[in-house]
């Protein structure tokens, strides 16, 4: 019956689109897709791509908030499309935009090269205090020592915290919350001896000192990593290091 088909619930998605080959600037395009209780924003996007416009571009992979690929602005807030459900959004059109503070590559896809460089700049691996041979066995750690850094190891590099950070928006060279959380994951590890190298990477104006303690990064983090806490701990570490640097020189 046509009436029933018309009555089927749909949802409008207002998507900021940008196709660099043909568009001068980004502009909004609206799509209507059938609504269901279980539908995530990512599924709505996939439905558009499968049935309405195959050229719509967005990143995704795992569908379960593990890979960190599908971060975007959903009604103006940085969120993962896969773990944001249409039923939890206010009625009316859903506005989707690429992550704030990043250059748009195409549609909802942003350029991540600078972010990757920042991650690599902080030595994101364990630098053993005393290297051990295979015969000497594994590096041991107590549960308490692991608890000191474990939450910071939950970061999935989704960059929502960068989209939330007004200071990163002001200054793209700011190392930013995510890289600071990863830094703390290694600096807080009892097996690691690379603190000195990492502190030198963040003691400048574009390092930890660009943060003004807004705290929105921790609010939007989908994995409760609390990057603002990592930044704050490293302000303290970097401040002590500032004064110790005079002692070391003397």
């Amino acid at each position: 019956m046509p009436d029933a088909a018309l009555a089927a619930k749909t949802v409008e998605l207002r998507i900021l689109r940008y196709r660099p080959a043909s568009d001068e600037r980004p502009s909004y395009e609206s799509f209507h897709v059938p609504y269901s209780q279980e539908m995530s924003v990512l599924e709505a996007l996939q439905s558009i791509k499968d049935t309405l416009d195959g050229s719509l571009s967005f990143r995704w992979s795992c569908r379960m908030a593990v890979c960190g690929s599908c971060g975007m602005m959903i009604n103006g807030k940085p969120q993962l499309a896969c773990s944001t459900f249409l039923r939890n959004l206010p009625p009316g059109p859903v506005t989707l935009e690429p992550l704030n503070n990043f250059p748009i590559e195409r549609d909802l896809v942003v350029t991540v090269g600078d972010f990757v460089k920042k991650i690599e700049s902080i030595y994101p691996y364990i630098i053993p205090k005393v290297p051990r041979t295979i015969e000497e066995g594994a590096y041991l750690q107590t549960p308490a020592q692991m608890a000191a850094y474990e939450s910071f190891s939950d970061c999935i590099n989704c960059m929502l915290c960068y989209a939330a950070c007004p200071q990163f928006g002001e200054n793209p060279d700011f190392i930013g919350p995510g890289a600071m959380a990863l830094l703390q994951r290694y600096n807080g590890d009892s097996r690691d001896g690379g603190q000195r190298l990492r502190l030198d990477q963040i003691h400048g104006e574009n390092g930890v000192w660009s943060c003004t303690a807004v705290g929105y990064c921790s609010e939007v983090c989908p994995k409760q990593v609390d990057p603002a806490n990592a930044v704050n701990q490293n302000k303290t570490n970097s401040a002590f290091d500032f004064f110790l640097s005079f002692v070391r020189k003397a």
Partner: protein
Amino acid sequence: MSQAVQIKRVPEARSKSPLFWLPFGAGGMLFALFGPGLILITGLMAPTGIGIPESFMSYAHARAFAENPLGKLILLAVIALAFWHGAERIFLTLKDMKAGTIPPLKMGTYGVAAAATVLTLIVLLVI
């Protein structure tokens, strides 16, 4: 990703921010711990005379406190660190609001805190 990833390994010049951030942090900690108590004693109990001796806020009493070396130290910490804490907060807020260029904003915030610190120090040394 096609672009070659270059690893930034040359550390930036060291920021002077710790000089401002440490007194800011110390001021914040001090007032989180003692601020409510100070307001209660000097702002509510002393003017109403409830719960403390009548002579508590008398000139002689206050002067004796300020003449004691430990009292001087406490007064300096409470006054100066409060200024440094407020200066950093106001400076960052004004900077974020793009209220002006950095040097005048710093003069109007850190400058005031520095002047207040020096003045307090002078007064405490004189009395």
